[in-house]
């Protein structure tokens, strides 16, 4: 099952996170921490594909994570080409996989609970053992 959050770290005392907030990912409810980059919240949930390219329709995801490569762009609150690695997560955000310049709901998705089929929330994830 997907669990990419680091629970405890030998060097880093804690990660600077806001409160847990709900947002929607391709129309499904999801959870992350306010202020963390959208991309970090998505990777924590196991999301790999952020967009499909205009030309060949290839999947792309996080590549540089510092706002340079622009491969992680998605449609956020209706605005395409938003660099999710640079954009802080806010409560209620509508985050959608981008196909070309428009939103697309892809299937299947790997961040689903294999038993219930429900979307994995950050809470569900953080309760899990590493």
């Amino acid at each position, binding site marked *: 099952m997907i669990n990419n959050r680091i629970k405890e770290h030998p060097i880093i005392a804690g990660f600077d996170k806001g409160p847990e907030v709900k947002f929607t990912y391709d129309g499904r409810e999801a959870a992350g921490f306010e202020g963390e980059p959208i991309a970090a919240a998505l990777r924590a949930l196991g999301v790999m594909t952020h967009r499909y*390219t*205009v*030309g*060949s329709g*290839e999947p*792309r995801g996080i*590549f*540089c994570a510092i706002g*340079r*490569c*622009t*491969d992680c*762009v998605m449609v956020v609150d209706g605005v395409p*080409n938003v660099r999710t690695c640079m954009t802080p997560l806010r409560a209620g955000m509508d985050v959608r996989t981008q196909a070309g310049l428009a939103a697309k709901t892809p299937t299947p998705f790997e961040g689903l609970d294999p038993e219930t089929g429900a979307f994995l929330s950050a809470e569900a994830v953080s309760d899990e053992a590493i």
Partner: protein
Amino acid sequence: MSVMIRRKNDSPFAPQPDDGMTVCRCEEVTKGEIRRAVYDGARTFGEVKRRLRTGMGLCQGQTCQRLVLAIISRELGKSVGDLGKVTGRMPVRPVLMEELSRSGVEGMESEGAEHHE
């Protein structure tokens, strides 16, 4: 904007097995397309860019510039340092036209007008 045709090459373009590999991730330009452009006479990063849009996508060449230069260098048998300088152009980061038009920054127009080297 046209690429000067300098082809003096009588031998046909020689395809390579990895010509289909993406090099410019933003504009989805392949290694084969870049090699072909060089074969057809492009000699600098700028000439390849104007023909294929490599480095003109959202990332502005952050990822592919070095890769494209390496391909041109290999194709021409010249060192990267001998390919001529890659012009650093304003804006060095993507910016919305709307933001630029609101700004009235001096020099924007002159930079824009100086589009041809």
